[in-house]
């Protein structure tokens, strides 16, 4: 793993989180949750520090991070787009919407655009199946999205409407 020095803020945040869980190895998943929610993502350096703090092997931390889809090792875009690919959304055309987003942004699922504006993820059921197909931009839910709406949603983001509503 490449070595990048963590900022002081990141280091102290991680240490605090680990301490709040008594530096207990069995709290690893909780520690990762909190760290990701504070720092946005879990790059190698962060995992190394967590491993050290919890007295676990880096391999174990890495194993857990890569096992669970919720954890990400890559920074997210300014506008994180998530397309629901749950069954209800799928049968109402989510795949076509996803294809259109991929085409417009020229990125695949799990990637971020070069300018750092958009990242793209696929989710499974956000609990709004009545609005299927669903696309989320940050916390904002767009319901009943058709491929033809994609352009507008992306434009809205670029115009500077905040990612969270």
């Amino acid at each position, binding site marked *: 793993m490449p070595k990048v020095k963590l900022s002081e803020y990141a280091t102290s945040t991680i240490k605090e989180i680990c301490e709040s869980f008594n530096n207990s*190895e*069995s*709290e*690893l*998943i*909780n520690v*990762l*949750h909190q760290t990701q929610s504070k720092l946005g993502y879990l790059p190698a350096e962060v995992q190394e520090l967590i491993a050290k703090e919890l007295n676990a092997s880096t391999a174990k931390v890495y*194993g*857990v991070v890569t*096992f*669970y*889809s*919720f*954890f990400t090792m890559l920074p997210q875009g300014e506008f994180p787009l998530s397309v629901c*690919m*749950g*069954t*209800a*959304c*799928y*049968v*109402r055309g989510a795949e*076509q919407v996803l*294809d*259109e987003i991929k*085409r*417009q942004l020229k990125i695949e699922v799990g990637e971020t655009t070069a300018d750092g504006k958009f990242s793209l993820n696929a*989710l*499974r*059921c*956000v*609990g*709004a*199946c*009545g*609005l*299927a197909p*669903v696309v989320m931009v940050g916390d904002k*839910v767009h*319901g009943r999205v*058709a*491929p*033809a709406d994609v*352009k507008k949603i992306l434009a809205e983001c670029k115009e500077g409407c905040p990612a969270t509503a």
Partner: protein
Amino acid sequence: MAENKTHILVCGGTGCLASQADKIIENLKTEIEANDLENDVRVISTGCFGFCEKGPVIKVVPDNTFYTSVKPSDAADIVQEHLIKGRPLQRLLYKNPKNNYHVSDSSKIDFYKKQVRIALRNCGFIDPENIDEYIARDGYAALGTSLSEYTPEEVIDTIKKSGLRGRGGGGFPTGLKWEITRNVENDQKYVVCNADEGDPGAFMDRSILEGDPHSVIEAMAICGYCIGADKGLVYIRAEYPLAINRLKTALTQAREYGLLGEDILGSNFSFDIELRYGAGAFVCGEETALIHSMEGLRGEPTFKPPFPSVSGYFGKPTNVNNVETFANIPVIINKGAEWFSSIGNENSKGTKVFALAGKVNNVGLIEVPMGITLREVIFDIGGGIRDGKKFKAVQTGGPSGGCLTDKELDIPIDYDNLIKAGSMMGSGGMIVMDEDDCMVSIAKFYLEFTLDESCGKCTPCRIGNKRLHEILDKITQGKGTVEDLERLSLLSNVIKDSSLCGLGQTSPNPVLSTLKNFNEEYMAHVTEGKCPAGQCKDLLKYEIDAEMCTGCTLCFRNCPVGAITGERKQPHYINQSLCIKCGVCFQKCKFKAINII
């Protein structure tokens, strides 16, 4: 709830919040204050009403007036018309699609008529963040009577007699599970609530936790009393922030009221609950994987036996039950085993919650008595198929289940019948499909899910499903052969027989059931290179019918790749070598001039 007051119940479930229910509440409160009504009217954010299709929904009690598809800007009118002038606001009332009559009273709406609400009894009726409202509806009475009047054996006996079976998919008798865990000698035992809800396209458990968290807390405490555990854990998906917050609030309130903690209600019984977060892995819903995940490890299943009841969390006896299973417990104790077992049919007692979604008119959360037919659920409660299309299949049991056809519509829904028909109850996802859905693609969709979610521990599941997916992919591209169909079923059976955990053992079900029930559709793909439903991109093309085309230019302007040419008022034309088959023109054309061939 206090008497002589009007209550406006606004659905605060995830679906309605996504359509600005929070803004509606805010606006209602502002309007109510502006009209000095704050002492007479209370606005409450409740859990899911179930009628997600028409969300956001609002109910005004005591008169039960039901408003659908409400917008934040409607708040002023609701206050002026309903609260001040005392007459229902006609334009927001639910309209019966059969005769276009307005229906005001929610209990008279077809969607609710055939439902029986036990697990969802409080969802949409109470403020989930207020323990007093739960208590006012007999909340914590079951815990009180259990602790003061019954021995643990007697409570277990009641649960056994009620016939309640696990709602997480397996259908194991709940009372029996409790008894087994109780009978294992150990100084430390655990109660675990499985709120991982992995089925993509299902939101039953999340809705219960969002709408009525106390019912699960109460039931877990009762379970702790029965099996001899003082600690409970809820394993919940981190993707459910609202459910997590409501659960946290509920836990704090229960502790304040002495309903959790040391010496509950002076009974010498102590019990408390902690939360553990899942991180997006379907296999963690499997109980052994879930336990490993709670221990901070990768969520990989291990061989059973030993069952968690004997050796679970950190090797201690652990009773794992699903959210909905727990939500039934307090009612069974309050109303008795006989009452509960009078609902349902021979082998399956009580009710089941389903997340009804897909191509039905009324997408939503429903609770129906066991033994009701699929037809009643889809056509009476669900209001039939959208846009007047034809019913094709219904999928139950999520990625582990199968697709049933119109031939099976009249079988009574219960654990055993669904398995006999080639599907399963599962945790309650129910997806309805119409003539436009390609069953090969659906099977492929579920396999993609399995591939993503297989933990990789055993070969048949890790590699076998990959091979299945490759074959299906080939078929959807029109490159499959008749022999491929045989290979599909052969391989499926090997995977079923040789995988370690339930995920692998059930993952080929969507393939097998569609192969059996929709063989003609598979054949059309492999012998004629056609997708009869018009879904498989590689097997279709879009063409403009020159007779129907008015030359409105709408498709021309919307085509993202400039594949359409044509003059205004002249028939348009699609250049097939440029077309990426996105379907936008097909959706946009107002004259049905674009055909899928």
